[in-house]
């Protein structure tokens, strides 16, 4: 715009200054990791609350007392915003290429914090830089708040609040894995650091573990290597007909719970009973017919296969779970005991904990005698969600406005 060439570091700062500052912060972050050999540990309640309030007051003070100062003006400028986006993007990009949290990580990449970027100082600086700039931009456009700034406010303040609450609240997130069984109520679990946690305030006893499974699939495998040769999806259900490679396959009989006695499978509902199917196969080329029982077996009973040729076997794969859930009895310290069912995607809330269905004993499959649950406490979630809902509203607004511009 102006004809004279601006000397660097002379206000107003633009792209050169913004990027130099961002790169300096990046290098400083790497250096601190390299020299200090430590990662950023997250702060916890109530320190994070005090720090959060302090940061908000600081941002408000900076804005209201110094908004005319060129430095503060720069902090809420587009060049600063772009340098902050680039700084953050650069670190996320590294995260996209370098495997994170690998225990084998070593060398310079590890020493400057790149094997665990989220806990590195460079990432901390990127977040602070991003949040300061985003915070000041939001303030500048919010006073006075005008109607046509609605979208801007929802998007910018929503993002600021989400990132801010997620960052300072990270230290308060508790995830405890608890393995429950039918024998007695369990009142302790293991957190993500591997420590045993006793004061959960709840005890859980498994009443019943349920798995609903898909029909098992049939595959043709190599006799020697065990590699799967067929690509077709063929479900073993009574009466099902189809082709697998060069064979026409028909399921003559099928038991969800079968046990082999002598030569034959019988429908028996007993611990360890596995699905079994009686199949008839016909080779399309040679018309050779084979028939027999196949079963995937279980931890208790051996499986069975059908020999198609010297090289190929028809086998049943273990059925994949469709749904699994735990019927549990929950005891709380307040004496409020109740029974409930916890299912994947359907957590239950008790005493500030959200309880999730996590896993079970895979070797025993549907006969699993244990259920693995996860208790999660994240006190900052309402604030994060408030930010997320603002962002959703902002995105809908933006979609609508983008549309309008096109019509104009």
């Amino acid at each position, binding site marked *: 715009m102006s004809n004279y060439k601006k000397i660097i570091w002379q206000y107003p700062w633009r792209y050169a200054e913004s990027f130099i500052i961002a790169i300096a912060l990046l290098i400083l972050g790497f250096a601190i990791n390299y020299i200090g050999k430590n990662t950023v540990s997250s702060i916890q309640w109530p320190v994070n609350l005090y720090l959060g309030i302090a940061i908000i007051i600081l941002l408000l003070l900076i804005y209201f007392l110094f908004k005319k100062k060129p430095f503060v003006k720069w902090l809420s400028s*587009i*060049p600063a*915003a*772009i340098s902050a*986006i*680039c700084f*953050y*993007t650069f670190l*996320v*990009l590294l*995260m*996209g*290429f*370098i*495997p*994170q949290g690998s225990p084998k990580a070593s060398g310079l990449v590890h020493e400057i914090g790149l094997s665990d970027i*989220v806990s590195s100082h460079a990432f901390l600086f990127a977040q602070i830089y991003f949040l300061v700039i985003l915070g000041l931009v939001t303030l500048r456009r919010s006073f006075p708040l005008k109607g046509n700034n609605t979208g801007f406010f929802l998007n910018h303040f929503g993002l600021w609040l989400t990132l801010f609450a*997620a960052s300072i609240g990270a230290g308060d*997130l508790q*995830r405890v894995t608890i393995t429950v069984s039918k024998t007695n109520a369990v009142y302790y679990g293991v957190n993500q650091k591997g420590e045993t946690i006793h004061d959960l305030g709840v005890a859980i006893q498994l009443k019943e573990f349920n798995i609903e499974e*898909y029909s098992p699939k049939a595959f043709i495998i190599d006799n020697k290597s065990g590699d799967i040769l067929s*690509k*077709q*999806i*063929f*479900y073993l259900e009574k009466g*099902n*007909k*189809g*082709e697998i490679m060069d064979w026409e396959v028909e399921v003559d009989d099928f038991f969800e719970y079968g046990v082999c006695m002598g030569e034959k499978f019988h429908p028996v509902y007993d611990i360890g009973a596995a699905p079994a199917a009686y199949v008839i196969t016909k080779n399309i080329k040679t018309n050779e017919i084979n028939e027999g029982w196949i079963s995937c077996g279980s931890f208790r009973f051996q499986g069975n296969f059908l020999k198609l040729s010297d090289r190929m076997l028809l086998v049943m794969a273990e059925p*994949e*779970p*469709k*749904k*699994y859930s735990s019927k549990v009895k929950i005891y709380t310290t307040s004496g409020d005991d109740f029974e409930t069912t916890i*299912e*994947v*995607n*359907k*957590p239950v809330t008790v005493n500030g904990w*959200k309880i*999730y269905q996590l896993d079970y004993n895979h070797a025993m499959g549907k006969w699993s005698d244990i259920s693995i649950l*996860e208790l*999660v406490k*994240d006190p900052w*979630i309402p604030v*994060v969600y408030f930010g*997320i809902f603002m*962002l*959703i509203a*902002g*995105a*809908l607004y*933006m*979609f609508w*406005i*983008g*549309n309008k*511009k*096109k019509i104009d």
Partner: protein
Amino acid sequence: MYILNFNNTAFITIALWIIGLLFILVDKKLKNARLIGNLFSIIGTLVIIGFLIFLWIEIERPPLRTLGETRLWYAMFLPIVGILTFIRWQYKWFLFYSLGLAILFLTINIINPENFDKTLMPALQSPWFVPHVIVYILSYALLGVSSVVSAWGLYLIKFKTFKPELLNKADNLVYMGFSLLTLGLLFGALWAKEAWGHYWTWDPKETWALLTWLCYLLYIHFRYKNKQKIITALWILALAFIVLLICWIGINYLAVSGYSVHTYSS
């Protein structure tokens, strides 16, 4: 085994679309050619919509799990957007682009036959599944068009025939695509909280989705203040789409992918 035969459906659809495009190509010379062309394109699209509906019923789950299945959705949405845009604004190139890409997607699916598998892991059985994937599909379709604009723009600049209005069109597409990208990311976060206990776990797909989002965020902010720096803007737009492609397709080939809930098993 299935009443549905994908190959036949795909061939019929492709044939209908090609006939439609040919009519539209000669609309100056032939009376009613545009109307007939539109009609053929619409019928072709209805065939693919019908196929998706029957497939959904047949496999007893939303057909949104594998890459091949999502390609089918693109082959449905792109023509809808393309035909509507063509009827409303008469952008011929846009119709050719959207139908052409839809034909490409169907062809990829014909070459890589997919066995539509009924199984869906329990975590994916959620009311969030459909909105999460659909907003992403729509978003990618819009951002895909913006990348065509950027490539076309870079080509025009070489021959000094570039007009800034072209980039304004890209801006609108990016605004719409970016807002859907935001929704997709947030729906994913809300879903993850219900399914896995936390809204953000830096899963490789999440990381790349965030990167894609950041690249378009960069484009929007760059365009906001630097309207005259056309070439830089065009390059940011082109690179952002490359990041999007890595997120969509390339993720399965990266060293980081490891165990990710988003790695589509085949």
